[in-house]
């Protein structure tokens, strides 16, 4: 059965959409365990922190060897998840590692920076300018990390089957779009969607 990878911008509601999609499809949501396991296998525990630290607060720099080993382990762990099926993989370069694989749906969740900053400002009760700084830092750090790891531009629309802009669609509407798309994928059989 299919695998869904979801790449999302900070403040785009991508995490909630991933959760709701997984619930609707009765899939397992894989999030941080993937990078922790990969970093442990790579013998580079700092790599997990570097991926988590999207605002760059920890200022972690990885050696070339750490990057290579982490990339190798990430591919290995994600390959195991692909065999497992019925999985929603949130972030972690799933759109690259599982690119071209049968029965995998690659989703990208985006929203304008202004809207994302407004959401973050409201949620954390901080000034809009500070929230916008978080959005910019996150975009920059995630983009840089993926470029270093896989030499790709994560904003390239050709990496994705489905692009969702949450400025108009809410979490439930977006999750339903994903479930519709994944059930129409060719290949593996489906568990079915909860109504």
């Amino acid at each position, binding site marked *: 059965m299919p695998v869904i990878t979801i790449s999302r911008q900070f403040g785009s509601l991508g995490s909630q959409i991933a959760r709701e999609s997984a619930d609707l499809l009765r899939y397992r949501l894989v999030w941080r365990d993937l990078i922790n396991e990969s970093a442990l296998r790579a013998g580079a*525990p700092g790599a997990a922190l570097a991926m*988590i630290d999207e605002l760059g607060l920890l200022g972690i720099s990885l050696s070339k060897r750490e990057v290579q080993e982490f990339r190798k382990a990430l591919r290995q762990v994600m390959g195991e998840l692909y065999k497992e099926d019925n999985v929603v993989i949130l972030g972690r370069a799933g759109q690259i590692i599982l690119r071209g694989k049968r029965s995998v749906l690659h989703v990208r969740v985006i929203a304008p920076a202004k809207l994302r900053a407004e959401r973050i400002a409201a949620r954390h009760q901080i000034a809009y300018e*500070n929230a916008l700084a*978080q959005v910019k830092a996150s975009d920059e750090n995630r983009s840089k990390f993926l470029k270093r790891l896989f030499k790709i531009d994560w904003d390239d629309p050709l990496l994705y089957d489905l692009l969702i802009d949450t400025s108009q669609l809410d979490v439930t509407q977006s999750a339903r779009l994903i479930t519709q798309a994944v059930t129409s994928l060719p290949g593996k059989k489906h568990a079915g969607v909860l109504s």
Partner: protein
Amino acid sequence: MKSIKGKASSSPPDTPAVSPSRRSSFYHPAEETFATILDYYGIEWEYEPRTFPLEWDERGNVIEAFSPDFYLPQQDLYIELTTLRPKLSTKKNHKLRRMKELYPEINVKLFKRKEMRDLMVKFGLYEQAAMIAGTGAQNQDK
């Protein structure tokens, strides 16, 4: 031994959350700031959970030891925070070298804390940033 811990997020937040302050439990304000960053990212942590003996006298008594500031169980990683003061930095580097010799299976990472405060202010995390009391805090150490 202190026993304060931070819990991991059970599910991914779209934006991280900040947990309540534990100011009184830490030896140094920078440590609390660091714990706040870990909480912000939903990373599970333990504060100074273990001490590693590094040197013994002829009677077998421990005369030098190292207690990393944090342990992150999910990453199996110890964290030590440090300033840029050359004297302290040299001392800590010596301890880290000794750690690697005696406990090669233990992962320890050194973090320089000089830029944390500025970044936290930039991102609107004022309460957290205020825990590092300016340059005075930067000059303190164990």
